[in-house]
């Protein structure tokens, strides 16, 4: 089956500092693909490039047969991006925020309503959606942002550290949302330095460090290859 996303030889530098030293990976339809690695490994830079926020250096990125460099507008139509430290407009009510974001993707009012209904279902925030986002807890804000990213059923959803900064219960809920709502044709590219989270969510993972992909495969394959109990041990072994 044709890949949703194919990345080949991707390089990126900020001035003299090399952030990505040539990485290759692909995301297949309907799968959750994760980049795992420590802080500063190049995960966020990779996701930002694919989300069309940063311009790629060398290499090619193909999204549904379209060159991302040449056709970023096409990519934006089909993806959603949840940054690690994202926020929502604090003066807007939750429901208004969802309508505002849905209006960018919907072609008809009916479609917009369908997107918002789906987001309301994802958040499970009920009446709180009629209050201002500024009054939400961190967990509630993250849920509404995640709902925003998934409500349009994008071809590819890019989630950067989706549970970053959340307590155990909220993190669990967010993971369950991702698991539950990614079954309907949406592929997910996510990053995390929480290896246990990745193991729970991902179909395939790539280990990244200092701008290079060290290895990739399913969690099971990698654990077998490195004879490790979990992905943390896999990562440590791959560094040697």
């Amino acid at each position, binding site marked *: 089956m044709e890949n949703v996303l194919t990345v080949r030889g991707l390089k990126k530098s900020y001035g003299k500092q090399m952030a990505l030293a040539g990485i290759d990976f692909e995301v297949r339809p309907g799968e959750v693909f994760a980049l795992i690695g420590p802080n500063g490994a190049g995960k966020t830079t990779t996701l930002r490039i694919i989300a069309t*926020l*940063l311009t790629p250096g060398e290499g090619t990125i193909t999204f549904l047969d379209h060159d991302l460099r040449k056709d970023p*507008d096409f990519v*934006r139509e089909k993806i*959603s991006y949840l*940054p690690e430290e*994202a926020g929502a407009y604090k003066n807007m009510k939750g429901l208004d925020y969802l309508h*505002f974001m849905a*209006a960018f993707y919907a072609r008809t009012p009916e479609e917009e309503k369908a997107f918002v209904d789906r987001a309301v279902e994802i958040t499970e925030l009920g009446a709180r959606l009629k209050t201002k986002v500024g009054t939400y807890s961190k967990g509630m804000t993250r849920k509404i942002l995640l709902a925003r990213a998934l409500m349009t059923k994008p071809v590819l959803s890019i989630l950067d550290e989706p549970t970053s900064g959340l307590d155990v219960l909220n993190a669990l809920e967010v993971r369950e949302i991702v698991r539950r709502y990614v079954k309907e044709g949406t592929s997910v590219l996510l990053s995390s330095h929480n290896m246990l989270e990745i193991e729970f969510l991902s179909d395939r993972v790539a280990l990244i460090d200092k701008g290079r992909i060290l290895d990739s495969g399913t969690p099971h394959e990698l654990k077998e290859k490195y004879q490790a109990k979990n992905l943390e041990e896999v990562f440590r072994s791959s560094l040697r």
Partner: protein
Amino acid sequence: MKRFLNLLKKEIKELVTPQLVISLALTILLFNFVGQMSRKEVQKAIGVQNISALDLDRSAASQAILTGLESARFKIERLEGKTKEQAIDIARGGDSKLLIVIPAGFGESLQNLKPETIETYSYMRSFSLIGASGSAIVGSVISALNNVLSNKFLKERLPDLDPQSLKNPIKSKDFVIVHNRMAEASASEIANRVRSQSMLIPIVLMMIVMYSSQMVISAVAMEKQNKTLETLLTVPIRRTSIITAKMLAAGLVGLISAVVYMFGFKGFMGGIGGDELKAASSQGGAVMRQLGLYFDTSGYIILGAALFLAILVALALAMILGVLAEDFRSAQNMIMPLMFMVMIPYFLSLFADINTASLPVKIFLLVIPFSHPFLVSQNLYLGNYGMIFGGLAYMLVVFTVLVVFAARIFSTDKILTMKLRFGKKRGVTA
């Protein structure tokens, strides 16, 4: 278009907060209140004035002077049988602004055509412009007295001659010529009138630029601070549409705010000036029309275009400065360079004539795009259309360059990586 309108609606909603509406409403109320209060004070100052008088002469001449003053809007409290020191103390305790002391022998000296001294004591109970008007009374009282007395002398000595003809044998009749039009008026009077007519332009420009720029800078900085910018940049809308929506929303709200403030300002000025100013203004207006020193429809269109272009330049510049700001707080500092660029020509236009400034100063001012709207009104009066259209073209070029630059920043990594930090390390950081 639907996406653009969606974003524009959000931008306007973000800017029109209850705080803004309340502050605008309070401004109108405050301006009107201060205007009405000032009007009462002005009316008090130009109404009947209380003065005290100590007549140590008690002659027919001294009585005639006091009676004359009473007929000229002065209410006189006569301090009978007191010494000068006592009179000074009594007047200090009352509400008189002035004490006049007519010395003994005053009438006799006048009879003998000897100059006599009348002492006046002004009680300054306030240093405000209106409060200090009491001191101006001294001049008008003495002048009125001299006029009355000299006329009286001349009439007695030369009964066949008009005292005015004798005192002012040469009279002047002033004419002002602007291009091929001529009117009877003094040059200083016309210059003052042109200045007062053009006064509103820099004030309007200052206000709109200040409000709109601050809004754009804050709008971009708030997106950064609230971490909403990254999400916005990945939704399917063109980057140029994001820039345009932010600029248009800030421009619209800034314009409405400025109109509201000007409305309040007009109420304030109307309160101070009252009917007297209106009457004087209509007389002067006729002379200005005679000289062609007024704006016709095309004049207003050119002036409007100049103001509009200046606002666009300010908004584009503010957009770039907003990108450089790290957060809302640093955005407040970012507005300063823009404010200086508007204030320099504004203050110079108040105190100097840019057209007659030295070449380096002139070049410096003409490079600042905001100087041109200040020059347009004067150049329209003087028919310098080359300067006018040159200025408009220059502003258009500056605006285009800034918008292209802003669009480039928004289309590249710089929107996320460029920032200036105040109070910390300065420079572009990645």
